[in-house]
């Protein structure tokens, strides 16, 4: 079985335009939230907007694609890969929610009023399919798949790339997720009563809902031998992927978290590790009452109440289809850096959640990091990364030496 490594990281969110800026934001505990400025709205929820998309990646009217291309370009650069990938067997797997919907309000208003509408919005929608557009831009000629698994889309895209590599469908994959802040989810999540009027507080007793955000998180995943042959040292290993459905409810997680537990245990089994091998969990942690209660309970049940847990949504907001990609990137970065940031927003422990996230910047052992994602539709996903420099069991990955 081929071993998959992470060789490049690209991130853009309200926390930073790239990884160094993001890590600085994390270290300082900054929260770059504010009112919506991207479109007119009467809704006053605080949101996490990206302030500056580099002009070379700005695509008029295609904000999600702009964010995605920016992150892909960063990741390719980090991996030491060219912008033209036509000589390699490269797959592209990107998750999103907003970019998959033809939801242009002005287009639709015009159609409603007159039965006709200009086709510009349709053209942008057709050109803006993430995987297709990224594959076209960077001349990747392997499989191209746009995952629309709601809030686990980015994580599932990375998991799918692992399946592709294992099966030899490609040698290298561009994988992650992207989403823009958009009118439809802002109104939609508001209608569900799960958006907070204040800054979000994942796992806190007084949490009152999520803040929406936007961004993109992309990893370059490649077969280890290919990576080393081209002289690149891996950043980390992508050691395991688990995915399981609740088969329970459209918008609420299973109250006992059965799907999430199955996904995490499946990911650990595929990585050939036990809960004791895990250094920390980068939780989905949306700050909604239901999500955090279920997720915290499941993580405590699997890893024990003292496991180091954090949510980075206090820095980025909930970036929907991008979240799994961004948080996978943050997990890899934490393994590289040897620390996880404070789970910003958390102050008071909830007695209904049998664990507390880290409240300050915390050192970690360079073992295994888990990133979890829960999605509308009852999908649950877990990714497991391990630090580069680990020794490896013959069947899979060996428990890492503590190189911290």
């Amino acid at each position, binding site marked *: 079985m081929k071993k998959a490594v992470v060789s490049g990281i690209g991130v853009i969110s309200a926390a930073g335009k790239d990884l160094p800026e993001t890590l600085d934001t994390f270290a300082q505990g900054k929260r770059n939230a504010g009112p919506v400025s991207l479109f007119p*709205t*009467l*809704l006053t929820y605080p949101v996490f907007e990206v302030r500056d998309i580099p002009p070379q990646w700005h695509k008029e009217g295609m904000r999600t694609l702009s964010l995605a291309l920016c992150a892909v370009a960063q990741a390719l650069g980090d991996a030491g890969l060219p912008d033209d990938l036509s000589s390699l067997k490269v797959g592209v797997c990107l998750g999103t*929610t907003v970019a*998959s*919907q*033809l*939801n242009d*309000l002005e287009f*639709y*208003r015009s*159609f*409603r009023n*007159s*039965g*006709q509408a200009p*086709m510009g919005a*349709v053209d942008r929608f*057709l050109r803006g*399919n993430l*995987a*297709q557009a990224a594959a076209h831009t960077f001349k990747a000629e*392997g*499989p*191209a*798949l*746009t*995952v*629309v*698994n*709601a809030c686990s889309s980015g994580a*599932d895209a990375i998991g*799918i790339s692992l*399946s*592709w590599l*294992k*099966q030899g*469908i490609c040698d290298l994959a561009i994988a992650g997720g992207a989403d823009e802040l958009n*009118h*439809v989810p802002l*109104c*939609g*999540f*508001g*209608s*569900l009563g799960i958006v907070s009027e204040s800054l979000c507080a994942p796992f806190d007793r007084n949490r009152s809902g999520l803040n929406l955000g936007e961004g993109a998180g992309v990893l370059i995943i490649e077969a280890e031998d290919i990576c080393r042959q081209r002289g690149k040292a891996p950043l980390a290993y992508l050691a395991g992927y688990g*995915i*399981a*459905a*609740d*088969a329970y*409810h*459209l918008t609420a997680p299973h109250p006992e978290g*059965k799907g999430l537990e*199955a996904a995490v245990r499946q990911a650990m089994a595929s990585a050939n590790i036990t809960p004791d091998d895990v250094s920390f969990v980068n939780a989905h942690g949306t700050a909604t009452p239901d999500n955090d209660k279920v997720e915290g309970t499941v993580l405590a049940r699997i890893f024990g109440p003292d496991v180091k847990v954090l949510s980075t949504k206090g820095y980025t907001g909930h970036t929907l289809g991008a979240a799994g990609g961004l948080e996978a990137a943050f997990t890899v970065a934490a393994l590289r850096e040897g620390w996880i940031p404070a789970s910003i927003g958390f102050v008071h422990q909830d007695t209904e959640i049998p664990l507390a996230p880290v409240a300050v910047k915390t050192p970690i052992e360079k073992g295994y990091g888990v990133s979890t994602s829960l*999605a*509308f*539709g*009852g*999908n649950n996903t877990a990714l497991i990364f391990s630090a580069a420099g680990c020794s490896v069991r013959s069947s899979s990955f060996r428990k890492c030496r503590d190189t911290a």
Partner: protein
Amino acid sequence: MNIAGIGTICTRGRGIESFAHALQQGWKAPQFISLQSLPDKSFPVYPLNQESLMDKAVLGKMRRADRFSRMAALAAWDAVQDSGMALDGEHTMGIIVASAFGPHTTTFRFLDDILDYGEANVSPTAFSHSVHNTAASYIASLLDIRGPTITVSQFAFPFHQAILLAQAWLDEKRCDYVLVGSADESGRVMEYICSQKLRIADDGQIQPFHFSAAPKAVPGEGSVFFLMTSREDGRKYGELSEVALSSHRNEEEDKPDICILEADGMAGDETGYRDAVVPGAFAAGYSPLFGSMLTGSGFQCAAAALMLKEQIRYACPVQDNPGRVNICTVTETAEIHSIHCIRYHCGQKKAVIKLRR
């Protein structure tokens, strides 16, 4: 990857028996509707018959589901029923739903809410159903499937990419079975978009063998699901042996008995199909039965699977053949070992799904 069961729902009815009947019956004229933007013309479409979506026994658990989810759930349910497999929780099953446009009519209903009632007074039900993976969620609940569940949305080869992932899941033993399929719906906004972006066949006939640089379409809608497995006891319809996402023909590849040309006017220039027919093979094309869809490949594969199971070569529903390729002109029994389903996207990119007896 063996095909253990198939479920279909399209303009010709629900269930694989209905689809087989449509293949036997041949072409039927589409409905002609009027569009506000085209007051002087009638516009052909192949819509689902509303009665096909009525099944209280199956849909009782999903009363709030929208049309898109109902369509997909019924096709998925029927694929499992067709296989005869008992859902006893003994085997791990995954779900992959592929779509080009997803539940867009529900998205527009949600936009209606914003426009009519204001941002703070929208329907949470409409919002939750506008999320693309809702259909997969309903399928999981309906069939109590707790394995991996993925929804994909794209315009180039969505069904092919889904099949490729299903194969990977089975090969890495992530699942024992994968319920993989496609769904796309029509609707007034999409019909308007089609009227603006596509050349529409005013006579209602898709012409798969004209190999035109400016082909004509008749928009359709529907869903098709396949229950796939590596298990030998799940070979009811033969085997889906390969998905080739390449524009180059492999001269060493196995020679098919039939090449199904998926030309349906959706993806521009269809001149490439002329050279896609493998010498010595029959050519066929069944899009005139169910209409033009970016996810139409699922229906073409269903036709191929039926031919392999029944050992019947179905006549092409529309046989206008100016290029004089060797098309199937009559429905007759035949020895069929291998069928290739060939699709082009945007004139250049070609993908092939290969099925074997």
